[in-house]
């Protein structure tokens, strides 16, 4: 029994470290790959924990490898958008100006009941109150509501058009614009697309640009901290 207790403590610390290495996220915020890895880790850890006849290494090594895979995958996803698209998918607009996009809903295999449940959780009780409803890659529904708050410009939503120097084609479709238009907008502001960290365009046409931090600035910032 004492062996089981010690093994449990060892595996508990291992899992804590593993989860800590993978990064802090709540279950609801997890991407599919992270959820799969978390489930696998808990399952693998339980085998040597409940059976003292199994060697601890049989649980420890797979956990290490899964954490390594998760970290490498997350690094690859930051570096390469295509990999991120394959692993996580992309946000999908399911409601546009109060109308449900049926094709997208079918593609997500999401029922109307599920959609309305998520709307209600977002304190929306009528489709007419929604300008945009977007299913995020983690499955959550983000909503832009029609509100009477004067501080919130009505019907406007910031859409990411350039992320890390790359133009998003899906955002172009959403904004009913072309990549050429975006390039022209950037050129008018005397900037290079490759130097842009984030460019958002509101549905009312407002453009916000955040440039990439220069390496020297970053180092200085790091040193000052």
């Amino acid at each position: 029994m004492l062996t089981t207790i010690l093994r449990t403590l060892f595996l508990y610390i291992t899992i804590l470290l593993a989860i800590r290495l993978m990064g802090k996220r709540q279950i609801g915020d997890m991407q599919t790959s992270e959820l799969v890895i978390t489930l696998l880790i808990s399952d693998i850890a339980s085998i040597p924990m409940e059976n003292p006849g199994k060697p601890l290494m049989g649980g420890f090594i797979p956990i290490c490898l899964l954490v390594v895979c998760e970290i490498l995958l997350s690094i690859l996803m930051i570096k390469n958008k295509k990999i991120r698209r394959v692993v996580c998918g992309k946000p999908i607009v399911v409601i546009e100006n109060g109308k449900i996009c049926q094709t997208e809903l079918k593609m997500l295999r999401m029922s109307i009941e599920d959609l309305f449940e998520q709307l209600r959780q977002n304190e929306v009780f009528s489709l007419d109150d929604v300008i945009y409803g977007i299913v995020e890659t983690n499955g959550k529904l983000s909503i832009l509501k029609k509100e009477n708050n004067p501080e919130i410009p009505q019907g406007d939503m910031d859409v990411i058009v350039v992320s890390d120097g790359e133009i998003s084609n899906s955002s172009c479709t959403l904004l009913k614009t072309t990549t050429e238009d975006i390039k022209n907008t950037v050129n008018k502001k005397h900037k290079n697309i490759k130097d842009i960290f984030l460019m958002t365009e509101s549905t009312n046409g407002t453009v916000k640009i955040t440039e990439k931090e220069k390496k020297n600035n970053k180092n200085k910032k790091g040193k000052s901290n």
Partner: protein
Amino acid sequence: MSRLYSCFALLLIAAAVCTAQIFVVHSAMDDVFELTETVLESSADKNTIYMKTEELYSKWESDKNKLCLFLDHDEIDAVSCLIYAVRQHCKNGNYGLVYSECAKMKVLIDAIDDTEIIKFENFF
């Protein structure tokens, strides 16, 4: 960046453990397998059988703790049981049973060693 280093460290740990496993399990199992074969081959000389059985026993006792790190403890217990049985039969002069237990042990050790090899059958 620190995540990448920890990733690298974890990979190193995993590689070290895997190498140690291959080395420890394979060499220990090879030694035990060879000694078992020697016992089976030395059918005429009873003294040699006794000496080899004792050698097998002491070898297994020294390797057992290392093997516990990597092998299923039930498998180790099964081999231990067979070795104790061989030793006891040898002391009692039941050489027929010594051969029989040794033959069983050979198959078991071969099977344990076989599961560690990367091959199609083990993969699925």
